[in-house]
């Protein structure tokens, strides 16, 4: 076995040093009844690199990579071009194979990256401080609600119907087991929901998404003010981080907490994970924030350096009193995010956002020209919803047979209902001919 360096001679001499006759003797604390005498049945024995490569490549070959066909899928996961440099740098062994930076003297690389990441996320969201990442956007959303409950000492959260259903479900699962109440507004594809009517003295927070799951972009400034007046926090969820290059940032709309998905920068689709949750707050909430934080300090020689900090909130210090049970973050995905954003810079990121918006405008115009297709949105960033004369799930299957990944049926996200709605995204990766092919195919299958 190529990964195991011990030779039989090593093993013998080590057993001698330990003074036991065999390795089985080292397992003597295992109850007799549970000891296995040989390898577990039903699984293959070890395989060489070539064999594993062949087997897994065969499995991969049964999937249709989104980049191999015109693809217009979004709904919380977006296909963007990732510069080659990103994956190259991420694969440097010193980043890839390091652990949580518990020894700051030999982890300044990871720590400085996290400090820079926290700064980048703060700037993008228009918030004061960000943490060093969460598992993904949905868990970040659930943690944001739990945090709002702690801060306000209230136990009810109002969730917009425009919140991504997976984010909604992640939050309501926690609500059920952790013990808080959620008011879930019905989906309003054409817009128009009165969130404020649900806010009362028990409400800890209102959760909105921008752009929402149907693609609408909104200004939540007034909602933020109204929430504040009623003592509730405004949580803004963002599933498409690139939108932050063009839209008024949540911080400027009065958000108290921003929970976002950072996959769009530096991270591939990966069939849904791993992704990177972004979490940013206003200054006053810093000590209530879950997750890992990197802070600036000085070393024994007075030089600037970085450490993990405010860990008194965390599970390894506070145990049952901890702010959350989170242990890991998404360090490597945060690194990819950070590198991609560094490559883009101010000018590149802004332009990337503008291109995304322009592509979506072009696509909307092309699809609107197809007979029977109606664009639902009055406003959008790089994603919008179309109303079809047939069930969207059927249309998507028919398009897939023609080699086009034509969006996400709303019914798939919502578990039924909204059958005629299709959520469609465009990014900088979509060419005009992709869009034309989509419009043509759509006309044929309708």
């Amino acid at each position, binding site marked *: 076995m190529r990964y195991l360096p011990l030779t039989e001679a090593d093993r013998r001499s080590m057993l001698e040093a330990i003074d036991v006759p065999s390795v089985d003797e080292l397992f003597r604390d295992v109850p007799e009844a549970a000891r296995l005498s040989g390898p577990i049945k039903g699984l293959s024995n070890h395989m060489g690199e070539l064999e594993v490569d062949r087997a897994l490549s065969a499995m991969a070959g049964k999937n249709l990579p989104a980049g191999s066909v015109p693809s217009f899928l979004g709904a919380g996961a977006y296909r963007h071009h990732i510069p080659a440099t990103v994956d190259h740098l991420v694969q440097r062994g010193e980043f890839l194979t390091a652990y949580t930076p518990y020894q700051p003297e*030999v982890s300044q690389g990871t720590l400085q990256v996290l400090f820079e990441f926290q700064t980048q996320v703060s700037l993008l969201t228009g918030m004061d401080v960000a943490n060093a990442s969460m598992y993904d956007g949905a868990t970040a959303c659930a943690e944001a609600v739990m945090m709002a409950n702690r801060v306000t000492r209230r136990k009810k959260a109002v969730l917009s119907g425009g919140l991504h259903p997976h984010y909604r479900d992640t939050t309501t699962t926690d609500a059920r087991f952790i013990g808080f109440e959620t008011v879930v507004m019905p989906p309003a594809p054409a817009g128009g929901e009165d969130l404020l009517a649900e806010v009362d003295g028990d409400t800890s927070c209102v959760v909105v998404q921008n752009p929402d799951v149907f693609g609408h972009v909104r200004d939540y400034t007034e909602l933020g003010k109204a929430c504040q007046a009623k003592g509730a926090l405004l949580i803004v969820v963002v599933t498409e981080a690139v939108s932050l290059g063009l839209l008024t940032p949540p911080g400027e709309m009065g958000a108290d907490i921003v929970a976002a998905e950072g996959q769009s920068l530096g991270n591939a689709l990966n069939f849904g994970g791993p992704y990177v949750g972004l979490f940013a707050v206003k200054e006053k909430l810093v000590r209530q924030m879950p997750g890992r934080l990197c802070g600036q300090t000085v070393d024994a020689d007075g030089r600037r350096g970085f450490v993990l900090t405010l860990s008194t909130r965390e599970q390894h210090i506070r145990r049952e009193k901890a702010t959350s049970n989170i242990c890991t973050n998404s360090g490597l995905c945060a690194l990819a995010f950070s590198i991609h954003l560094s490559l883009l810079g101010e000018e590149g990121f802004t332009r990337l956002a503008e291109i995304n918006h322009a592509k979506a405008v072009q696509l909307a115009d092309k699809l609107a020209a197809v007979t029977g297709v109606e664009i639902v949105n009055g406003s959008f960033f790089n994603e919008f919803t179309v109303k079809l004369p047939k069930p969207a799930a059927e249309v998507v299957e028919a398009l897939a047979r023609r080699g086009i990944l034509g969006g996400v049926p709303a019914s798939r996200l919502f578990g039924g209902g909204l059958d005629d709605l299709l959520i469609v995204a465009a990014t900088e990766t979509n060419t005009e001919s992709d869009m034309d092919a989509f419009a043509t195919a759509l006309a044929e299958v309708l």
Partner: protein
Amino acid sequence: MSMNNQGRPTHISGGIQNSDSAVPQTVTGNRGLQIEEPLIFEQDSAGRCGVDLPEVPAVGSRLGAVKPRGRIGLPGLAEPQVVRHYTRLSQKNYAIDSGLYPLGSCTMKHNPRLNEKMARLPGFADVHPLQPESTVQGALELMAELGRWLATLTGMAAVTLAPAAGAHGEMCGIMAIRSAHDAKGDKGRTRILVPESAHGTNPATAAACGYTVEAIPATEDGRVDLEALKAKLGPDVAGLMLTNPNTCGLFERDIITIAEAVHAAGAYFYCDGANFNAIVGRVRPADLGIDVMHINLHKTFSTPHGGGGPGSGPVVFAESLAPFVPVPYVVQDKDGAFRLVEQAGDGPAFGRMKAFHGQMGMFVRALAYMMSHGADGLRQVANDAVLNANYLLARLQDVMTPSFDGPCMHECLFDDRFLKGTGVTTLDIAKALIDEGFHPMTMYFPLVVHGALLIEPTETESKASLDQFVTALRALAERAKSGDVAYFQGAPRLTPRRRLDETAAARKPVLRWSPAVEPETVAAE
């Protein structure tokens, strides 16, 4: 400069000494290959961009009432500058690729690059989670196959791959336990028992799920106190969360008796499977009476830790809890096609724990690792992990104080009794070890012993690297006993940064760069 000298020192210094006076002060502040790298925000040049992007098509805006934002404040750099920045930063990190990383309970083993290559195949990496099922049959097959391996290795009945990390898996397990009690209409169970030696996430998880947490003390030999446990069991106990092998690096000998007692009280038995790598292929958790257990794919099946994540924490369920798996999960139809069940519906399966279907990239790496080892190789993994830990225990026990009698499992635990009266602490030993070129062991954990040093070598270390580590650690132990306190208090001396002021960082947190606070560097004296 003459080419003749390239590759050779121009001054013969007579050897490097461990004192700052021997290190020349340079104009740049760099020390040879140790480059002082500013923050990326301090390298800004407006207008630079490291990505070529086309012009924006002139098609007008559909942003409705939302105003386009103003300047963000991001720095501008060209591609070579970005490459250099991150390369230089990477060089300030210790990593398993560079050397032994004996962090107890963290399992820093070799990360095979085949796994990376497989995870990057476009068929896995470039697949959208909401593509039609007909276009992702291979991805679903991979998930089913990984689930089969995990169920077979653990002897369990059901698997969820959804949890994003080990602690997230704990949450999932406790939610399943709550669901099972709820399904029986048993609402009076409000307590979860957690041994003192548990990972810190265990009590945090139970508390987050609304349970009262009650600690079970450890015995003199580092295991759960069975009598204390039995005394605490009652009709108000929902479950026990036990780590096995435990965080003292020991196998819980009484585990079957513990399981029986827990079940007799009507409670469920959660096992923290973070240390499964010690017994994989040798013991099936189901045979121990465990109802539910999470597995850290990044530990047992070696996916890179990436500076702290991402992780992946699938959970396996015995028959007793199998109906309570969360969505989504994969099923196979009679015609062989794979399907995703994405909605909880009205059954006992509980809701969703994250967006989409789990950490697919981690699943590919874990399965590649499993297939590379196979059933026979995984058994050897446990054997070698345990052998390596016991070898360290044997070679160090005369100069350091083992906390408990052997044998240990995949990690060995020492406490600070050997440092008594020397003025040297566990932390000092760790910092001195850094100057020797090793990442330190886990310190001050588990909390059940004073000044803990928990060492986990893993199965991918050679005997030679263990011997080198032993030599270094023995020398340090003896140096401490000889009274050379000053040496330890100044350590580390040879790192990019000396000891960092963590108190200052927490007292007045600076958590982001902004022009107002930059740069806070105080010039060296």
